[in-house]
């Protein structure tokens, strides 16, 4: 019984660990899982820029809230907000370029 349990556990491990090779076809090594293959891998540059974009949006939102709650004066807010939006736009442009080159 104990031996059988260990064998079942070992077989389950082999099935789980070897799945990417089996799904990838004969060559195996270059393949990805069926589910994962559906998603094109995101290039590092694009991933970087998307992370930067999310952070910038958060920053803009924080500045808006700081302004609404009176922590930033109208003048300070305009300066900060303009700067942040300019930075966001440059990130968006870079992101578009990166996505364009990835598509090619």
């Amino acid at each position: 019984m104990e031996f059988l349990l260990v064998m079942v556990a070992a077989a389950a491990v082999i099935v789980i660990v070897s799945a990417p090779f089996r799904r990838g076809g004969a060559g195996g090594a270059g393949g990805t899982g069926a589910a994962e293959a559906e998603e094109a891998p995101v290039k590092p540059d694009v991933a970087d820029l998307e992370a930067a974009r999310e952070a910038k949006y958060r920053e803009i939102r924080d500045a808006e809230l700081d302004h609404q709650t009176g922590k930033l004066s109208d003048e300070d807010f305009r300066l900060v907000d303009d700067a942040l939006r300019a930075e966001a736009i440059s990130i968006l442009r870079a992101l578009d370029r990166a996505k364009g080159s990835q598509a090619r």
Partner: protein
Amino acid sequence: MAAVGRALLILGLVVAIYGVGASLYGARTGQRAWVDSGRRCMYAIAGLMTFAFLIIEVAFLRSDFSYTIVSGASSTTTPTFYKAAAVWSTQQGSLLLWVWLLSVWSTLALFLTRRRVRELVPYATAILLGFCTFFTALAILFANPFSTTANPPAEGAGLDPLLRHTTMMIHPPMVYTGYTMLAIPFAFALAALITGRLNAEWIQVTRRFALAAWLCLGIGVLLGARWSYTELGWGGYWAWDPVENAALMPWLLSTAFLHSIMIQEKRGMLKVWNVSLILATGTMAIIGTFLVRSGILSSIHAFVSDPTLNISFVALIAVMIITSVSLVIYRRADLRSESRLDSLLSREAVFLFQNMVLVALTAVIFWFTFFPLISEAITGTQQSVGPPAFRPYVVPLALIIVLLSGIGPIIAWRRVTLTNLRRSFAFPAAAALVTLVVLLTVASGVWAHPFALLMFCFAAFALAAVAQEFWRGVRARRAMTHEAAPLALVSLVRRNRRRYGGYTVHAGLAVLLIGVAASSSFQHSRYATMRPGQSASIDGYNVRYVKPTATPSSEKISFGAVLDVSKNGHHVTTLHTSYGLYPSQDPSLGVVGRFFNSGSVESRIGLDAGFTHDIWTVVNVGNVSPLQADITKGDRLFASAMSTVSKLPPAQQQGRMNTLFLYRDQLVGELTRRFVTHPWPVQFLLIVSPLVTWLWLGGIIVGLGGLIALWPIPVLARRRVRSAAYAARLARELA
């Protein structure tokens, strides 16, 4: 099933080693199948370790004494609740818990990142599997939970009485969850250094795990403090014990990390600082694990020292430090900041200062925690340092942290004008000032404790600052949406969870530290030796020892006391406290003596907890000398009787022996009841502490804030920002 357990551990080790190789090979060659296979190794290990952990849990619940750890830490009389928790009271069981939790959290992290940060994931997987390899190897080679004995004892030694506390079920798993979760940001930070991808990506991926680790570790630390307060019988909640400090240090560093990563996310600054902080935090978590396991420093929490285990841990810590430092130096050019501080009057500057204070606090705690080892290396003898050594450094630093926790929320990012600053500071500063005036007017003797006074004022500042932020946020929200105030509050928090979760944590911290400052500065405590009917006074209360109680049982004997507390002639509360003695397994103490002269004792405190103060007491009945003559006589008689019985034919022995044990139990019961019929004077520790409840209440608020910050941001909020940003982009491009 022990053989299955051992096989699962070995299988886990093999899979972990393979996974490290597969992940690294996949990363080097860019072949995703190998990377995926490596990641799936972690899933498989989580399954194997869950199975292994279940086996050992079942062994404890069934009192299967063929397992050496079950016979060493449980017994048939141990309540089921404690049997389940007894697993992690042992070195072997707690190591298995460590590997299990590590594999479960790592599986979750790797599953959630399976389609993200693809350059980092293989290295992070290899590092996490490396940790699994290390701890599984330790479990197999030096602390195997599945080791068995051919001749199992009929009864186990039972769980250490000090561990019989409801917190035992939650406190260790919480601390271990914190430690093991910290391995995740550590692994991704190292992966970022290895690959050179040092932007905010790795932070965004692991921030939630760092926050969850911080939350769990914080809950674990607080539960440990509560345990100490209600179980250990010394009347305090924090003793600066090495193992307590070991959990506090990574918590402090992760607090600093959670603040400073916001600066990197927003400004691309502090990259070296952030990566160093999380590497130090991860290393500190392993040092904490090592301190518990090694017993190198004297602590009531530590396991027995094991030199082989110690060498392994020292080697792991050395590898972690050397690798971290080398990689940070190697990548120093890529870790340069992308921008500079706009102004010293900005939230970035406050966060930076707060970070330095938190790191300084950690350094102080580290120095005094390891001072016994340092002194031993220099002088040859271990010199212990107690709480008085910590206080001169910790108290001022804690004061600065509380003040900064109030300043942080009311100061804006990037820049702020003096006019706005004055407006934001006015209400919190007024609250601090009012607190100062009221305390100086109302509370006599508060001058004698200037640090406590400052703490109350700074905490009032922080609480007022947080309240002001919530109020302003609700007002702004109502102006935009015309929602009712409660709905506006919920919407505000829901859409800005990180911000308002953080503010809630700051408020909780202020409440918690008010409790700490008040209870440590204005505590009254005294020892009183009393007979039934006698009284002692403390802080205006009259405490009368009403009557003794005695409860003999097969598990333990318990001497107790009922105390009546009154003030100005009015009854305040009735306290029940007891002192339990667990029978020793050492036969040399005598058949009767082993029930009364055991080293295993437990104290049940009498506590009347209130919002303004706690009345706390514990009885010490360690002195059983009034019974000693009869105990010795009983031992002699029973030894003689048992010697006679042992000479009888085996068939008669069992029956006679059972009769003897029956008489013995009657004698033990009779001697125990003498405490009631012929009471002797016993010593009580009486304590009146103000605002201890605030400490626990503050902890709950901190936990609530952590949960709010941890909760995912709703998709709606993200969309709103995205469209707003795209609108801004369109406007700019049109212009």
